[in-house]
């Protein structure tokens, strides 16, 4: 547990060799530690995402939250950049994968890195976290209520998001999934389908779905917040990362 840390905006090399902004948080001290990539949700590189990054730093991890919309509007406020990205069709999966690989490399290059890197994402970032787990060299994956890991997106969705069913056999790290029974995106049926695939493919995983809980239950400034579920979820994430990231 570390309450003393340094946070700063840094630039790292992302997809296509682009320089991408990230929010880097580093607990004080030189002791070797694991690292976490925090993937922000579709509304952007916002205050809540940075608060989550700092929370992981209190748990002893170096943390990098890439600004996935840096290219669209580098000087914009996070919500305005998210609006620009959305109007342009969102962050493409291939670019996200390249940015996550760059973030992992940045974290592993730190002198105090123990070489282990985890990834976590919320909402749209939950899906992206699983995608990263299937395509990037990471050691632990957390998916918080990511829709369209399984299931079929509506054809009316102009952003053309696809599910990850074809990617899941390539999942290369243990997966912790945290969901709400009352959520429809992902629905309990879609979570069950994910479980079935992970069992069939022999992937190490734990999927938890909380009763009386819907989407976005970790979001502290929304009515969706469910503190019992969120507290249990944080405890599970803490144990999961302690096991696989070795902090």
């Amino acid at each position, binding site marked *: 547990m570390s309450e003393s840390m340094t946070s700063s905006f840094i630039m790292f090399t992302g997809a296509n060799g682009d320089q991408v902004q990230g929010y880097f948080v580093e607990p004080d001290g030189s002791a070797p530690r694991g690292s976490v990539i925090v993937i922000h*949700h*579709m*509304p952007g590189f*916002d205050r809540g995402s940075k608060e989550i990054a700092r929370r992981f730093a209190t748990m002893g991890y170096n943390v990098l939250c890439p600004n996935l919309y840096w290219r*669209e*509007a580098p*000087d*914009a*406020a996070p*919500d*305005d*950049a998210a*609006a*620009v990205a*959305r*109007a342009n*069709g*969102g962050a493409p999966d291939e670019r996200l994968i390249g940015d996550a690989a760059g973030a992992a490399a940045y974290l592993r290059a730190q002198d105090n890195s123990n070489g282990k890197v985890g990834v976590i994402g919320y*909402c*749209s970032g939950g899906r992206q976290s699983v995608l990263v787990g299937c395509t990037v060299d990471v050691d632990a994956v957390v998916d918080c*209520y990511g*829709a*369209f890991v399984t299931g079929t*997106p*509506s054809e*009316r*969705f*102009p*952003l053309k*998001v696809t599910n990850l069913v074809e990617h899941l056999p390539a999942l290369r790290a243990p997966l912790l999934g945290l969901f709400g029974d009352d*959520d*429809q*995106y992902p629905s309990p049926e879609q979570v069950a389908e994910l479980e079935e695939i992970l069992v069939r493919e022999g992937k190490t995983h734990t999927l938890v779905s909380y009763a009386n809980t819907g*989407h*976005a239950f970790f979001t502290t400034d*929304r*009515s*969706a917040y469910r503190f019992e579920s969120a507290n249990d979820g944080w405890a599970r994430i803490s144990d999961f990362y302690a096991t696989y990231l070795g902090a």
Partner: protein
Amino acid sequence: MCTYLTVHAPIEASAKGPGGQWFAASDAVVYFDHPVHATADHTLNIDLPNPRSASGERIAIEMTAASARELMKAIADVLETVPAELTA
């Protein structure tokens, strides 16, 4: 959820943006998703981006689905009430 649902409407309009400056708007971006400021978990959101802004300047509105329907009705009422030759 993040709905991913985004619809564009070509418009010919002017909007008064941040700093009180008017700009010509040519695109309305409409989506239903998590708001930044409104208290509802999901809202109907409309952005009118300033196409000349490199920093994402825009007019942004977040409203409940019920409010959006009220606004649609008000717009329809106004357009149906004024003389047709003015809105052709």
